[in-house]
């Protein structure tokens, strides 16, 4: 906040008097995306658009969704990692289409109706403590994980963590997607249940537990946060699953009732533009979607490392099935059944 004011003051000094007279256009962004992680991107946006006063709120996915639906005046831009809910909001007609060059050039698989755009490319990873390798072969695939959970059940009991499908929208989505790809997923759930898995609300909580040594292995963490964390926590190993790796995308849309549509469109266009993506790739662990962008965090680089077994969660109408309450009930019923199926 202080930096923004400083930037404003600096610009006011440099700009001609006419520019001072113009009050900057406000822009309200409601995002389920850590401010710290995304700070370089926001700073770059403010540099290129000094006439826009950006207000960025970092909230949970549920709160972002509630605000998009209920709070008026509506936010200008809505960003969330809860992909099915984002798509459901767009399907309800809560978004307005974006007709900028950047939106037009955006890959078709990463957008829907030209209204909502997946602008990050975050692999879902398994994280384990370096200690684990002393006792067993670290897991590189989903099957490996299930194997060590069953073969080292006693050693790992209580030291396994993953998302709570009931409390976390991201976790629920990831498990649903896992269940679609492999019927053996439920064996893994059963194995985790047998190992008395701890269910957390978010990736950060899992990372904290791993660093503290409470957990030895974490399943289905957001790769972006994990990689960022691991840079300063050498005791942790981030493993992108080698059989298949889900990829989650943060989805952004301009709200239908945006009070400042011009600024909102400029912001989303910036996210999708080469400049924004270059910052994503270079200064954040969020990974750029665009193949032409070069940096340490790009989808292309990830593909080079992991091969073609990256499974981005598709941005299309099929996501709507995950928000269907009946399907959710059915899924949770099965989850609860499977997680305790191996209990003695």
């Amino acid at each position: 906040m202080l930096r923004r004011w400083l930037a404003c003051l600096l610009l006011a000094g440099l700009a001609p008097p006419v520019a001072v007279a113009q009050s900057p256009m406000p822009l309200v962004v409601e995002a389920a995306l850590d401010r710290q992680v995304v700070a370089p991107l926001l700073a770059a946006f403010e540099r290129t658009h000094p006439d826009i006063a950006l207000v960025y709120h970092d909230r949970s996915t549920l709160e972002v969704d509630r605000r998009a639906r209920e709070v008026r005046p509506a936010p200008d831009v809505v960003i969330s990692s809860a992909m099915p809910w984002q798509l459901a909001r767009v399907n309800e007609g809560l978004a307005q289409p974006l007709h900028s060059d950047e939106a037009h050039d955006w890959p078709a698989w990463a957008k829907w109706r030209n209204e909502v755009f997946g602008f990050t490319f975050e692999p879902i990873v398994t994280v384990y403590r370096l200690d684990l390798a002393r006792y067993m072969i670290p897991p590189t695939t989903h099957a490996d994980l299930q194997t060590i959970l069953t073969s080292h059940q006693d050693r790992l009991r209580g030291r396994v963590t993953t998302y709570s499908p009931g409390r976390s929208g991201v976790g629920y989505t990831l498990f649903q997607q896992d269940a679609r790809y492999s019927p053996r997923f439920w064996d893994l759930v059963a194995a985790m249940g047998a190992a008395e898995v701890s269910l957390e609300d978010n990736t950060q909580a899992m990372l904290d537990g791993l660093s503290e040594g409470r957990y030895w292995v974490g399943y289905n963490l957001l790769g972006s946060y994990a990689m960022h964390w691991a840079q300063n926590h050498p005791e942790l190993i981030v493993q992108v699953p080698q059989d298949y790796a889900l990829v989650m995308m943060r989805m952004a849309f301009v709200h239908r009732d945006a009070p400042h549509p011009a600024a909102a469109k400029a912001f989303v266009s910036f996210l999708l533009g080469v400049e924004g993506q270059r910052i994503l790739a270079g200064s954040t662990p969020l990974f750029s979607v665009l193949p032409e962008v070069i940096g340490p965090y790009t989808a292309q680089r990830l593909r080079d490392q992991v091969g073609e077994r990256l499974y981005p969660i598709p941005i299309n109408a099929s996501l709507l099935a995950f928000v269907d309450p009946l399907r959710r009930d059915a899924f949770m019923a099965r989850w609860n059944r499977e997680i305790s199926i191996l209990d003695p």
Partner: protein
Amino acid sequence: MIVVDGTLKRRLAAWLLATVGVLGAFLLLEAYTSAQRAADRAYDSQLEAAGLTIAEAIQWQDGRPIVEMPAAAFQILATDQQERVFYAILDAAGREVTGNLDGAVKPAWQRAAQTEPVWMTVRHRGTPIRLHGRELTSAGWESLDPVQIWVGHTLSGREALASDLFVRALTRFLAMVLLAGLLMLLAIRTALGPVRRLRQLLRQRDADDVRPLHARVPGELYDMADTLNALLARQREGRDALLRFTADASHQLKTPLAGLQSTSELALQSECPADWRHALETVHDSAARTSRLAGQLLSLARLRHADEDSLATVDLAALLRDTVMEWAERDVAQHHDLGLAPLPEAPLRIQGEPWSLREMIGNLIDNALRYTPPGSEITLGLERQADTVTLGIEDDGPGVGDSLLDRLHRPFERAGRQDTQGSGLGLAIVESIARRHDAVLSVRNVPGHGLWVGIRFPLLPEEA
């Protein structure tokens, strides 16, 4: 005067355009609705597929339907056009078991879907959508209550497909119009062939060739060719009449000329000055008569060929006064008492041709001077009736026999006398001029003395 009034090509093109316009409007309307029907058929089948996919996933548990919504159903619903999708599963009481239609399915629609699957286009929260509903009888162990599956999506795919189909139909239609236009031009060229042939036939004719045309023409041109032949026939008649008139006239001229010739010949043979004098007097009279005859023939010929549009508003009183004044000055009038009865004060306007009216009055005076003895009284006058005016001339000469009165105005009739220098053309000219002015000529003997000739003209209405 022939004025070019457009071309046949343009007229036919206008008709074609009108036909194509009206027909085209219907065709395009039809194309538009059928394109929409086709698009609806194509996309309705997707709705049906999505509905069936959901139906397959429905199971019953504890008397309640349990659905694990198939993701594929949504993809089918959304289609390639990424439509917004709507769905609802309703239980027997019409409650929404799941879905995102929020009770938008009206009870009437539900009743309609009970008998057979329904499709409808409705507005949902301000957006037009296409809805499909079907009822599914339960197949579970406990429940017999049916459920209804409603699916829908927005219309952009249908609209895109319909407009694509319509544009294709439009393109085909325009191509057809273009082709029809070209064919029409060709058809006009061919159809106008007989007209060109007829023109050629007329062009090749000599100026005085008035024989009927002989040509093969299509039925549509028969009338025109026939009219042309009728015109040629009339010209033939006119020419024959002219020939007859010329023959008459030359006969009339030949008579005095022959007299001149024989008289002068006789005088040349004579040695006696008295004979010469006598012959010269005869020659002089005869020459005067001949030149007057020539003048009258010229007048008649001119009357026959005068333009119709030289009529003007004429004050008959002023014209009569001027003409009588002029004749009173002439030598021939010096031995008669030529006069004018008092004229009405107001001008008497008629539609007339000044030169022919003067000619007419002159002929009347000339006749009177010739057919009355010297010293006779000749009086011209105007007499006004309600909406006519009669120009009259009366003399106190001998008059004519009743049997001759009717024949007087025929050419070359001389009131049964051969002694005067008259040609007998005077009254014929007068009548001819009167006819041109819609006037009526009447001739009668004045009881006791002389002849009265009157011409009754229609008066122009008084100016306000």
